[in-house]
């Protein structure tokens, strides 16, 4: 999946990058317009390598108010996630500016590496990595939709899970891409998020690079905690050992928990992601966001998406909770109980996070 003609400057392949995630609400405003508009303008102005605005299916924030697209009266302020990657200096500056314009929400800054010819994921000191491939939904690769090709490649190489998320707005190589109601939408921003053993991810990345124009992709360190009901070795306790180190500079460090499942995954006869959000909210988590993908898989399931003429949806779901490293243990325990049968649970270290009030 490649972007339009590169205009912006990004970090070199294999180089260090920084990834910013901003969790906020659809109704948040800044300077007489929606905050989401201002955030994407900021990403464009800072010429970040990639930026995507995702709208959540369900979630809550610090105010503990549930928003869900299941109920009409609770769907006007759905959770949004704006994420961007780029050269560390530019991303840091973006985060600082963002803190000035937003009155609420959560900003996280995480380390990422640009996957590229000079740097293979095999060089990572971690057993598992998270790969994110950025591109457009309309892009094609080897004669089929690029996201289907990327997911298929990852699945074939035994990568533990992959989800295709489609954005409503975005930036690629510093240029703005927007999903419009009446448009061909060739460049609706899309991203593939995958988690797996580094060797398997490395092999998949090598194949993706060989099969056409290399996509913009980042790698991050991640710990897989559960996979389809199997708790991974106890040596990988929670929080991940490395999360204990402090980080100099401002902001506090935290842990990002992610649960990958499907709209069809169940716990106790109820949709798994709804149970997870309900439980996290009941226990007082500071926020949680469920994103609905359009294609993907987790564990041993084959890649899936919605089918024509099927009432029930069959798309992947990703639920994210970010909190301080210590507090996150409670949210992990809740997630572990609900994913006793199925689902992929990962933890990532968040070196810097800012809760805006």
């Amino acid at each position, binding site marked *: 999946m490649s972007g339009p003609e590169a205009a912006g400057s990004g970090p070199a392949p294999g180089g260090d990058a920084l990834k910013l995630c901003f969790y906020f609400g659809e109704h948040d405003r800044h300077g007489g317009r929606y905050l989401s508009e201002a955030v994407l303008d900021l990403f464009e102005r800072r010429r970040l390598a990639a930026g995507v605005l995702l709208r959540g299916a369900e979630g809550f924030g610090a105010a503990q*108010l*549930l928003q*869900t*697209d*299941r*109920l*009409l*009266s*609770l769907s006007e302020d759905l959770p949004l996630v704006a994420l961007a990657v780029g050269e560390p200096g530019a991303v840091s500056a973006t985060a600082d500016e963002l803190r000035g314009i937003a009155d609420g929400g959560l900003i996280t800054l995480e380390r990422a590496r640009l996957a590229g010819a000079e740097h293979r994921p095999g060089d990572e000191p971690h057993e598992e990595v998270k790969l994110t491939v950025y591109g457009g939904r309309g892009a094609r690769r080897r004669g089929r939709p690029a996201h289907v090709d990327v997911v298929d490649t990852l699945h074939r190489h035994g990568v533990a899970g992959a989800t295709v998320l489609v954005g409503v707005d975005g930036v690629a190589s510093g240029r703005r891409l927007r999903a419009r109601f009446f448009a061909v939408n060739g460049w609706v921003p899309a991203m593939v998020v995958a988690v797996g053993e580094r060797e398997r991810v490395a092999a998949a990345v090598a194949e993706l690079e060989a099969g056409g124009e290399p996509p913009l992709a980042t790698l991050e360190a991640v710990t897989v905690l559960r996979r389809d009901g199997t708790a991974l070795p106890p040596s990988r306790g929670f929080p991940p050992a490395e999360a204990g180190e402090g980080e100099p500079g401002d902001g506090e460090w935290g842990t990002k928990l992610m649960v990958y499942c499907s*709209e*069809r995954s*169940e716990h106790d*006869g*109820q*949709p798994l992601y*709804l149970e997870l959000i*309900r439980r996290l*909210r009941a226990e007082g988590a500071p926020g949680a966001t469920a994103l609905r993908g359009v294609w993907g898989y987790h564990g041993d399931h084959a890649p899936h998406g919605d089918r024509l003429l099927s*009432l*029930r*949806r069959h798309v992947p779901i990703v639920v994210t909770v970010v909190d301080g490293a210590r507090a996150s243990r409670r949210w992990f325990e809740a997630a572990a109980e609900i994913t006793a049968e199925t689902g992929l649970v990962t933890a990532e270290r968040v070196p810097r996070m800012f809760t805006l009030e």
Partner: protein
Amino acid sequence: MSAATWIGVALAGGLAALTRFALDAAVSERFAGAFPTGTLAVNLSGAVALGFVAGVALHGAALTIVAGGGLGSYTTFSTWMFESQRLGEAGAARTLWLNIALSLAAGLAAVTFGHWLGGVL
């Protein structure tokens, strides 16, 4: 229909839409679970009210304004169907059928109760 009735329908409809919105949001936030309680609360209270209006034998322009304008705008069939379809998409089949059966059974009971109440008064 007179101009005054038209204006009455518009005002009653607007007011009822706002009331519905407030009640739906309050109930949904209070019982935020898989079941669409807000819409059920709106439709059942609307059914009681319409039964009551029929029970007190309201007629003429007053009936048009209250029943047609007000309660027509207050209750919502489309949201009931939309939320049922979303439950089906999410795979919550039991909740889907409960939402349909409960709305029908309790809705009939609500109209009957409202009608009785209107008759008694």
